[in-house]
């Protein structure tokens, strides 16, 4: 009975910490702590070799993929003699002969960037034995996570924005297609989605770094989760969809195909990678007006679709952004609760 009481007590406290807006008497120390931590983490990132490596990885993949995409676009224009259906944004979505498109690279490697920046954020402090000194300063524990996360997001934003702009520049030079204002807007929003997408993985790696004592365990768990979400979830979605809404191969009806596709899409949308790829497709291709199976059919039939305005495209992928942000918030809530209750020993 006494045990039940303490459990209840603890639940109440966690709820208090999370939701009750008790007028914070230490708002000043919260701000000061946040600023100091943010500054230090940023400096740490810039000084670290890891940051350089990640930057190098992003730069190499970005530039090679855009170079091969540019070459592919050029040959297709000179081959057909027309640039119909090709615009400035194609440079981001076109795959070259041997290189996948930049969007594919970002959706595949983005998680690695996020994981690389955060996998030892807390466990590193622990193993260097600086964590107990840090948490004995008058700052809230969530400030520690927030400071590290914000610094990481800043780094990610700098990388993604500069990559987007450099790639765009190369694209203009190679294809001679200048962006319209709307295309530039699409590009900017796409880059914001990219930052959010990579930041989810930063949040996940932060969570792992405080759950696991060893940096290696935390990194491996992150990679395992990434492989699952990026690769296996898609296969799993196929299997489940075929069980739940089977399609008769000899006599497929539209209703069957749509039901099957709905299962597949909804399951694979658990993964941020799916959410991101879908939104990238819609944002960078003004003609894409639907998702999944329907869009595939439209493309296959070569139906003549008119361009959507930016607002219309955003309307399609707005739920995706909401979901991506919601995922981040969930990961954060879990991190707060775990870190709050964790004992810090030297």
């Amino acid at each position, binding site marked *: 009975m006494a045990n039940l009481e303490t459990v209840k007590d603890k639940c109440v406290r966690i709820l208090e910490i999370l939701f009750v807006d008790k007028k914070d008497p*230490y708002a000043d120390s919260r701000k000061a702590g946040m600023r100091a931590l943010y500054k230090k983490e940023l400096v*740490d990132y810039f000084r670290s070799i890891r940051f350089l490596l990640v930057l190098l990885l992003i730069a190499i993949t970005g530039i090679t993929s855009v170079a091969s995409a540019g070459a592919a676009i050029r040959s297709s224009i000179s081959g057909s003699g027309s640039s119909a259906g090709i615009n400035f944004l194609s440079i981001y979505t076109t795959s070259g002969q041997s290189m996948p498109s930049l969007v594919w690279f970002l959706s595949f490697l983005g998680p690695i960037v996020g994981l690389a920046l955060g996998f030892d954020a807390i466990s590193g402090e622990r193993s260097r034995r600086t964590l*107990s000194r840090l948490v*004995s300063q008058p700052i809230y524990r969530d400030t520690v996570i927030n400071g590290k996360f914000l610094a990481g997001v800043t780094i990610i934003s700098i990388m993604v924005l500069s990559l987007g702009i450099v790639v765009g520049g190369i694209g203009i030079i190679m294809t001679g297609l200048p962006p319209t204002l709307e295309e530039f807007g699409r590009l900017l929003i796409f880059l914001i989605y990219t930052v959010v997408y990579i930041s989810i993985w930063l949040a996940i790696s932060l969570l792992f770094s405080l759950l696991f004592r060893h940096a290696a365990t935390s990194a491996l768990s992150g990679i395992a989760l990434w492989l699952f979400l990026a690769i296996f979830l898609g296969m799993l979605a196929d299997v489940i969809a075929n069980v739940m809404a089977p399609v008769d191969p000899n006599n497929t009806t539209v209703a069957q195909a749509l039901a099957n596709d709905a299962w597949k899409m909804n399951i694979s949308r658990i993964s941020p990678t799916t959410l991101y790829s879908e939104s990238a497709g819609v944002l960078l291709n003004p003609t894409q007006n639907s998702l999944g199976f329907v869009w595939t059919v439209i493309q296959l039939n070569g139906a003549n679709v008119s361009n959507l305005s930016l607002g219309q495209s955003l309307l399609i992928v707005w739920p995706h952004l909401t979901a991506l942000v919601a995922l981040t918030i969930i990961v954060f809530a879990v991190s707060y609760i775990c870190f709050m209750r964790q004992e810090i020993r*030297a």
Partner: protein
Amino acid sequence: MADKNAIVRIENLTKKYGEVVAVNNLNLEIEEGEVFGLLGPNGAGKTTTILMLLGLTEPSGGKAEIYGHNCTRDPIGVKKVVGYLPDSVAFYGDMTGRENLRFTGELNGIPKKEIEERIDTLLKRVGMEEYADQKARTYSRGMTQRLGIADVLMKDPKVVLLDEPTLGIDPEGMREQLILIKELSVKDGRTVIVSSHMLYQVQQICDRVGIFSHGNLVACGPIEKLKEELSGEGYFETEFFAAPDNDELLAAMRSVKGVESVDKEKGVYVLRSKSDIRGALAEETLKKGFSLRHLRLRTGELEDIYRRFFEKEVV
């Protein structure tokens, strides 16, 4: 000891890890400006107590207060007035000593100008100004500990918690460290709580000590009083040696009034008695023509007090 100056109040504080009781029903009050020693072997519950005082560990029962701030509910209020030097303190290796201190100052929201002034004074105080601009990873253990003291003082705390501050440093470094710690109380008027298993060194600077064993506070008070307490129980052990070492010496020792037993331990005789027999013992043996080589009352040292308490615990 219901002193109205008590600034640290611990009531029935308990911490259990599953079935293991790390700290058992601790009651303790510490007064403003005193140096209090938490003494005991590893695993006795000293560090757990300190962590609970800082709100870094949630107690299973009871409560602790520092300057009226509840350590569990209001850890930020506590951390504003309490400086903590963790057990085997460490700094960010790729930052210099000065940068590390600056970071601590910024975390505490101290104005920029004041931070720089404080860094300079503190570095001078702990004798680290020469090395302040080297990367912290190049520091020796002793230097790191000294920088640790400067780091604790950055926030100008009223209470200083030091967990094993003398661990792993050489005797000379330890002596300097102890002087630094004592000054925190004597010069600055701060309250110092220092935990250690190195009893002899630490007793020199403590006004009061609490002896921990298996999560229990088995004794608490000024060293002198603890000694008396033990003497009151008739515990006197005298180490004695004289030349020549023969049967006559043994007989002479036994003939001294009050001696209950004589044993030989590590080359000296240990005489147990209910009163202080040193005078009578020296007189008797000198009279019989022995030359005195060694005479020491064991209960005078903290280690002996300490051992006694453990013997009591075990029994």
